């Protein structure tokens, strides 16, 4: 039997993965969720037809959003994760004993249940007593939060799906408010390779660059992402991802990894020319905007 799962990366490109079994299908108020088994990528979680993660490449993503800020910020106590209902990121943070609280905001309770049932290893961290899950909208949660967190992770990956609110200026602004004076926000920056994704990537950088004093972008290779290539945003009120990076201190923590290394940390911020160019273009545009506004108010 030939059974193939396909995801469109553009109108003209699709990624097809052979599946041998569909393990689950269900619909919540927010999305349709499917779990399928594939010979190449292991089990995969699919939301409204798009891959959320696969067992084979999930570790790349989780490690890159966790260890990068953890190796920069000198004293992390409180972490907030948005859209991390699949538990991977929380599980990764739970490896750090110095963290006191990990708050997870996820609107869809069903996503957590399905993840727990079909991906017990990856959701292990959700059982950690430091992890608290809040089933609510991210913007709603943030409204009353001020100066609370050391690290905020936006783990939502679809700027056009039910979590589109997590890619807006009001969201990034609210994160700024919710972070302590030396807080760091890590967010999904998309995949800029295909033309149709480029504008989303640019607009995200524009929004964050305007709000945070430090705004850098780093990359990783993730096989199931469009073009196998993915960017993350590092936005911070104080720390620079390379200048304030302390590899020796992080190494002493003895955290086991498969993707992240302290060498890779530095390399991940070295971007291809075309990506650098488009980010710099947006930075130039934003600087000009700020200049114009200052002149206007004068």
């Amino acid at each position, binding site marked *: 039997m030939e059974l193939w799962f396909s995801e469109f990366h553009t109108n003209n490109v699709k990624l097809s993965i052979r599946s041998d079994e569909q393990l689950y299908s269900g619909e919540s108020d927010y999305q349709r969720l499917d779990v399928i088994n594939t010979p190449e990528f292991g089990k995969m979680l699919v939301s409204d037809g798009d891959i959320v993660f696969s067992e084979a490449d999930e570790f790349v993503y989780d490690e890159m959003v966790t260890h990068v800020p953890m190796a920069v910020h000198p004293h992390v106590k409180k972490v907030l994760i948005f859209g991390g209902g699949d538990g991977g990121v929380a599980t990764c943070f739970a490896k750090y004993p110095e963290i006191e609280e990990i708050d997870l905001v996820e609107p869809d309770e069903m996503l957590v249940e399905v993840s727990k049932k079909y991906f017990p290893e990856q959701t292990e961290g959700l059982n950690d007593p430091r992890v608290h899950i809040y089933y609510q*909208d*991210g*913007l*709603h949660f*943030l*409204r*009353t939060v001020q100066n609370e967190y050391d690290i905020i992770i936006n783990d939502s990956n679809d700027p056009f799906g*039910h979590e*589109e*609110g997590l890619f*807006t*200026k*009001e*969201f990034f*602004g*609210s994160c700024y*408010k919710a972070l302590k004076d030396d807080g760091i926000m890590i967010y999904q920056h998309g995949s800029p390779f295909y033309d149709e994704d480029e504008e989303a990537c640019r607009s995200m950088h524009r929004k964050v660059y305007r709000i945070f004093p430090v705004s850098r972008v780093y990359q990783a290779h993730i096989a199931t992402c469009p073009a196998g290539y993915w960017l993350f945003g590092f936005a911070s009120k104080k720390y620079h991802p390379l200048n304030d990076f302390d590899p020796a201190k992080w190494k002493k923590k003895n955290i086991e990894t498969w993707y992240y290394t302290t060498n890779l940390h530095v390399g991940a911020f070295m971007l291809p020319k075309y990506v650098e160019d488009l980010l710099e273009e947006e930075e130039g545009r934003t600087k000009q905007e700020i200049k114009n506004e200052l002149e206007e108010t004068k």
Partner: protein
Amino acid sequence: MIRRNKTVKENFVERQSHAPVYEALEEFKKKKVVPFDVPGHKRGRGNPELVALLGEQCVSLDVNSMKPLDNLCHPVSVIQESEELTAEAFGAECAFLMVGGTTSAVQSMILATCKPGDEIILPRNVHKSAINALVLCGAIPVYVEPKTEPRIGIALGVDPNEIEDVIKKHPKAKAVLINNPTYYGICSDLKRITDIVHQHNMKMLVDEAHGTHLYFGENLPINAMKAGADMAAISMHKSGGSLTQSSILLTNNGMNADYVRQIINLTQTTSASYLLISSLDISRRNLALRGRESFGKVVRMAEYAREEINAIGGYYAYGKELVNGKSVFDYDVTKLSIYTQGIGLTGIEVYDLLRDEYDIQIEFGDIGNILAYISIGDRIRDIERLVGALAEIKRIYEKEQRPIITGDYIQPEVVLSPQSAFYSEKKRLPIRETVGQICAEFIMCYPPGIPILAPGERITKEIIDYILFAREKGCSLQGTEDLNADYLNVIV
């Protein structure tokens, strides 16, 4: 085509499940008739770029009036059936599908009840379409002064006692027109006003542009037909979900429907768009079958947004607490109107910030308020974005409160009827030099489209100050011959 067999007794739901115009269009499409009539784009083939924009389905429905599809100017088959179903759904005697916006419905109400020289009683904060109708037909306005809310500066409803006083002073008036609910959601005591109006043998006309949902939702303010009004203009395209520019006119109490049709035909196009007509047909069906549930959801979303916005602080999202039994008899809780001066910003400033900085387009902002339109198409996550953006605007842009001109409404002195002023000899003056003159044209902020000055009214310094302040704050000023509104036409 599934045609209803009229001899079979059907219940309300079965009848309302039909959309006769839509069904006829579907049937017509299947026949693949070769068009040698207008429109000249011939199902889009002659205009591929238009097809690319609107889609094949859409342009193929843009057809001419013809026997199987009836004719809006003289309906005898499917449009007639659709109008009958509409009347039933709204609890009216007759309904007219309108394609010239609610403007044409409001004008038809006035033209159908007033002749040149007749008096008509109305509050001054009516939509410009009502005063335009007075220019057209030569009726004389008698204005009832609406009260203004001192804190938030919006015009309130009409007090029945005041209506009665005015009626006693003008016993020969032919009709009373009120707008209910207002843009902001304020409702007057429609039932009592209607009773008073009828006791004095006048016609009760209601501009219900912002009240389609009152006919379908639960626990909402009373609608015009239920209150016993004679005519009502309904903006189906606002809360009803039909296409922009489509509207409904309702009549009741034995109004002569054939005469009303003649009045409508004076100004209505003879090439009515089937896109508009079918959108009214489908929307009416949807409201009749699912309106209660849909508007229940709208109310819950609006109430949630109100609570959350009031919790931010500074903003005031008002609701039922404004009700005082007189100038605010009831409040339409589907509306989300927010007073913004508590954070030191005018409504128009918040309106601009929401659009330019947060990609959120709201209905309008005036000097003191913004209005976000909540409808059957909204989702709670969009509400979260709106509330989140308002919280951010407060955090980033809040100013120390400073005195701002309040009151969106100044009652002007009427010197001439709108028609004689409009057609008088005029001269153009720079706006600052017009104090004391009689205005010969309209000037208004759009939206909401309530005239600050109408033809025939005395210009005062207070009014000019208000206009200049509104313009400085970024309101779009409209209605004047000079598109920049630097000059005003006054009567020589």
